[in-house]
């Protein structure tokens, strides 16, 4: 049985991390394109809690939540945002590209749909190696319009790969609503022509997401093939930090904020147990402290040395061609 307090704790960590990142960017203490998942934490946490540490995920441009939920540390993520060598990408690639083999994070991705095939490939690898690892692939509903989504569903369906396709359906792709970018919003219907299982979950209810994901993961682990899991949710912030999001109706946002995934879980737990509130408050506070420590530590580190930018292009260093000083 999943511990709901653990779920809450992780959601709180994501919320704290992203809230901090938003402020840091506004203060220009960090730079870059920042896509926050505030409001969508339940999907990342519900799904990743159904996974083992040696399972794999592939993530998106809106990936902080996935990475934290899968076991990425806020220290190394924050160091990456600050361009520090201790960051997950040695400070060179930024928050859009966090990856960690130890935590089973294949990578965030700045290409819409770009991470799907590698997630399918990880499932293929598990199948070939005879491992029971499972791969979960996150993507927004906007990625459904990318052809590669369909290539992946077909391949996974054909080979019955142990993969869970997790659609974070927040009804917006940048500044464009789903009615403008998908012929129909019901992404789960794509399971049918590929003969794969599907689940639809309330993406703001972490327990519901976790249940659905657990069934999907169990099927995958048992060799029963892929699942398309569609979670309806909503992003609170603009598409990226700096986007005023004037394109959407404030009431739409307000309605979804009423359904804050953290508050929703809190209400469930408090209704069950009167001491819950204090416990959850403590988790909130600890999440904030942890993120604050990570910020301070990252900020105190020196910038990644300039020379490191040409490292790791290949496993063994090659004579590098070109460069300003060629």
């Amino acid at each position, binding site marked *: 049985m999943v511990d709901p307090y653990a779920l809450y704790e992780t959601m709180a960590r994501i919320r704290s991390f992203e809230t901090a990142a938003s402020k840091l960017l506004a203060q220009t203490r960090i730079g870059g394109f920042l896509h926050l998942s505030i409001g969508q934490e339940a999907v990342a946490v519900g799904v990743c809690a159904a996974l083992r540490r040696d399972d794999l995920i592939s993530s998106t441009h809106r990936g902080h939540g996935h990475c934290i939920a899968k076991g990425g540390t806020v220290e190394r993520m924050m160091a990456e945002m600050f361009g520090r060598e201790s960051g997950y990408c040695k400070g060179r690639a930024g928050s859009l590209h966090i990856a960690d083999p130890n935590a089973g994070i294949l990578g965030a991705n700045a290409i819409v749909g770009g991470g799907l095939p590698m997630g399918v490939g990880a499932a293929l690898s598990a199948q070939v190696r005879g491992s029971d690892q499972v791969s979960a692939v996150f993507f927004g509903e906007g990625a459904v319009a990318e052809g590669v989504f369909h290539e992946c569903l077909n391949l996974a369906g054909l080979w019955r790969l142990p993969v869970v396709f997790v659609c974070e359906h927040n009804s917006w792709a940048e500044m464009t609503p789903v009615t403008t970018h998908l012929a129909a919003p019901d992404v789960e219907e794509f399971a049918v022509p590929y003969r794969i299982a599907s689940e639809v979950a309330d993406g703001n209810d972490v327990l519901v997401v976790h249940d659905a994901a657990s069934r999907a993961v169990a099927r995958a682990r048992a060799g029963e093939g892929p699942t398309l899991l569609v979670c309806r949710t909503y992003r609170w912030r603009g598409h990226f930090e700096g986007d005023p999001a004037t394109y959407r109706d404030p009431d739409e946002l307000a309605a979804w904020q009423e359904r804050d995934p953290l508050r929703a879980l809190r209400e469930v737990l408090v209704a069950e147990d009167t001491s819950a509130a204090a416990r959850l408050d403590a988790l909130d506070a600890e999440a904030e402290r942890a993120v604050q420590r990570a910020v301070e530590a990252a900020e105190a580190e020196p910038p990644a040395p300039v020379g490191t930018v040409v490292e790791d292009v290949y496993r063994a260093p090659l004579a590098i*061609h070109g460069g300003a000083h060629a």
Partner: protein
Amino acid sequence: MPELKYWQAIRSALRDEMARDERVLVLGEDVAQPGGPFGATKGLLDEFGPSRVRDTPISEAAIMGAALGAAMTGLRPVAEIMFLDFMTLAADQLVNQAAKVSWMSGGRFHVPLVVRTICGNRRGTGPQHAQSLEAWLAHVPGLKVVWPSSPGDAYGLLKTAIRDDDPVVVVESLALWGSRGPVDEGADVPLGTAAVRQPGGDLTVAAWGATVPVALDAARHLADEGIGVEVVDVRSISPLDEATILASVAKTGRLVVVHDAVSPAGVGAEIAALAAGQGFDTLRAPVVRVTAPFAPVPFAKHLETAYYPQADDVVAAARRVLER
């Protein structure tokens, strides 16, 4: 002549051409209702309506191919591929289809297609939003490729591209998005022409897009030392204005090429090869390419700054070449 920002010049060219020619159609991700990811299509939907200004799904191949089909059948589409890096997703439609239709059909179909795309270099956009892939495009027969470095050229080249009967890729620099300059709405800028931005007798520096200001900066430094740098804004990546480049090299005998793309098989290699071929007899020193190192584009500002050629790098390269 009005002063406009780079992005306003783009918008202005789109507006003028759409008003002039009802066959012009604009399509791409977030171009209609949102007015473009960075504002370059603002107002077009209101002025020209939803049939001619269309938000698309996130489907780069279909955007490119649908624009191609429309271009073959009476329209003059301007398709937007948000970032040059995403051209990889539309590459079959661009390279195997659009670029070849005129040739394959025995010249019976034409493809008056414009593809606008942004290069995010020098703007902290990281390894999947900042690649300079102009060399790929230059290697494709059937395509024309331009990269404006000023609002005036952003306007003039886009306008000429829309009026051209062949597929033209217009690469725009996010780094120059807010730069201001005069825009002559009467003047066309012909495709296939470079522009000498500053004359000089000692050394030719060829650059395009966001490296033009870098080259001009270096030229100013060197001018203080009495060294005359001729800055050629290549501007037309394909076809290259070989005559202008060769004439400059004939005059100076020395060539430095500056670009933000990586070096191997880049457009800098093509220009160096041109000098080593037709220009050989006038060349008095090695051709030096000042480029990004052979690595993806870093996100962190300090790494990105070190990654791209700076004026100092151009000055240093110039000194090496001038020693000879």
